[in-house]
């Protein structure tokens, strides 16, 4: 029976096709491998680095800090040379012995890093720097300016019945910290069981309004463009991407109710190309690298070179002149009862 043969072949093909997307990233020759947040190795500025050093940059995007940590650790730290770690996993990486201390003397541009970021408590352990801060920013409220009028000023807009089925939240347990902030909790990363129950109530009440939980910035941009949603809790990256695409997008950062991140480059203890990794970090601290990151993502840079490269006006917009926003943002940190957070998140999603 040729049907029998055919179905066997077809099932075989299908399972193969499903198996393909998991492509391992391997270092070969001078290939710098990195696991990063979307946009941090964008070809618009990585190309120059590749030309200057002859090293190819091969990056994997992660959807959450936990995924980043897991993938970084999976290959015994050999799979990736670099990681763009946010403040919630820097300490975890250090404690797991996965990263090596940074010799700042190897970085020509290290002096340009804002003084308060040198030796920042999020990447300095045991008195030694294990990471180099290069970008930071808040999680913002983005909205379709045509559909949402007047411009929102607070997160409360997400719960309005007018936007039922028109909002999107990140599919990431860290979103719980944002909800805790909306509820007025002082420390959104230290929540008791009662606090978590309250967060759960709020999220459950919000659920009918949620059209989709987004996992990548690309997916979120697509949701806006296809008219599925009008409001979202997002990274500034989405605002940058959509405004460049000519989409009527607005962004607000409700004061005092912001979570955010401070990202550091960290080098794997077992990195195959530590020299190239140092070169990359140095490049990202330089005017070109900083401008590249800021232009692509819309995040704030971390060096005086970067501030000069984008001009005083833009640097002021990104709060790089006085860093006043940086101290207001509740930066992502390690959460002690994170298991409970994940559980709560799964309950919301099911």
């Amino acid at each position, binding site marked *: 029976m040729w*049907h029998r043969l055919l179905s066997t072949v077809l099932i075989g*093909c299908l399972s193969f096709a499903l198996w393909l997307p998991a492509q391992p990233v391997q270092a070969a020759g001078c290939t710098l491998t990195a696991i990063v947040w979307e946009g941090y190795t964008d070809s618009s500025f990585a190309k120059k680095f590749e030309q200057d050093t002859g090293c190819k940059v091969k990056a994997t995007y992660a959807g959450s800090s*936990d995924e980043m940590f897991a993938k970084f650790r999976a290959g015994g730290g050999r799979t990736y040379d670099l990681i763009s770690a946010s403040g919630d996993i820097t300490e975890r990486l250090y404690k797991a012995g996965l990263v090596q201390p940074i010799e700042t003397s190897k970085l020509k541009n290290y002096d340009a890093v804002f003084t308060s970021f040198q030796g920042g408590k999020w990447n300095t352990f045991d008195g030694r720097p294990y990471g180099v801060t290069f970008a930071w920013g808040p999680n913002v409220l983005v909205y379709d300016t045509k559909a949402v009028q007047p411009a929102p000023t607070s997160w409360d807009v997400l719960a309005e019945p007018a936007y039922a089925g028109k909002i999107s939240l990140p599919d990431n347990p860290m979103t719980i910290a944002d909800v805790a902030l909306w509820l007025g909790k002082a420390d959104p990363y230290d929540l008791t069981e009662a606090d978590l129950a309250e967060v759960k109530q709020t999220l459950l009440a919000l659920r009918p309004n949620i059209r989709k939980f987004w996992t990548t910035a690309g997916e979120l941009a697509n949701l806006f463009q296809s008219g599925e949603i009008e409001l979202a809790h997002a990274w500034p990256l989405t605002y940058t991407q959509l405004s460049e695409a000519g989409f009527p997008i607005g962004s607000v950062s409700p004061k005092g109710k912001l979570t955010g991140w401070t990202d550091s480059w960290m080098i794997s203890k077992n990195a195959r190309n530590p020299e190239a990794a140092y070169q990359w970090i140095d490049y990202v601290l330089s005017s070109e690298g900083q401008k590249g990151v800021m232009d692509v993502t819309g995040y704030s840079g971390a060096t005086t070179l970067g501030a000069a490269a984008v001009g005083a006006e833009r640097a002021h917009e990104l709060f790089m002149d006085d860093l006043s926003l940086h101290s207001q943002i509740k930066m992502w940190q390690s959460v002690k009862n994170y298991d409970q957070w994940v559980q709560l998140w799964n309950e919301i*999603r099911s």
Partner: protein
Amino acid sequence: MSSSLTQFPHPRSRRRLPLPVGLYATLLPPLLWMTLLYFVPIVLLMSYSVWRLEAFDIVKDFSFVNFRTIFTNVAYRTVILRTLATALGVTVIDILIALPLGYWIGRYGGRYRALLTLLVILPLWSSYLVRVFAWKIILGYNGVLNSALMAVGILQEPSQVFLYNQFSTILTFVHVWLPFMILPVITAFERLPQDLLEVSADLNAPPWTTFRRVVLPLVTPGILAGSINVFSLTMGDFITPSLVGSANGILLGNVISSQFGVSYNWPLGAAFALVVMLIVFAGLAMVLRQGALDSL
């Protein structure tokens, strides 16, 4: 012992055939393949499922804590039940579509049978992802369906009810797995002896009785073979629900992928994967007893 060994070469053993080296050699590649790509991963999966996560570290101690979490947590139980219901629903709908189609192609396809069968499996030549995305484009807020309904005046403004819910999930599953149901059903109908239907008619059985008492029992193995395809494919899938599914309608596949990805709890994810395997094996065992694979 060594002395007793020296007593052997028995005179008769000389007549014994030489070791069938060729046979063993041909068995070796599939055996290696199965061991490396099937048995080893399953053993790994099983060992992970009895380990546990503590403070972001996998503790390699034996315990059933993951399985307890799965079966005591209300949310996880809901997901298991929802996945089961979805998989069964998709299977039943596919059977209902495949039966008339298979009957028609198998009996009346005539010289076009090969062509018609080809048309059934043609969608499989495009990527699975493309087919799921196509449904997103059809059912979306500014999608094909909404535009069409607005053009003929049924809707005044685009509706949100088509996409991101259980309906769109089931519809997409039904479509993408349909060929896996139709193929064995066509085969079953091709094997159905025409004379039996004539005998049944000669004995004055109305068409419905003929279908129920003669046709259905004979094509059941084909239906079951298709069912196990569709059921197991649906049980393990996470791409369809994450692309077209609802915000609060995740399936087991999504839970597993999030445990291995975003939440980094491999032990719990492995335990979930085992639960899915057990459900599929249970289904397979039930279906095998009915002789399903005889006609795949």
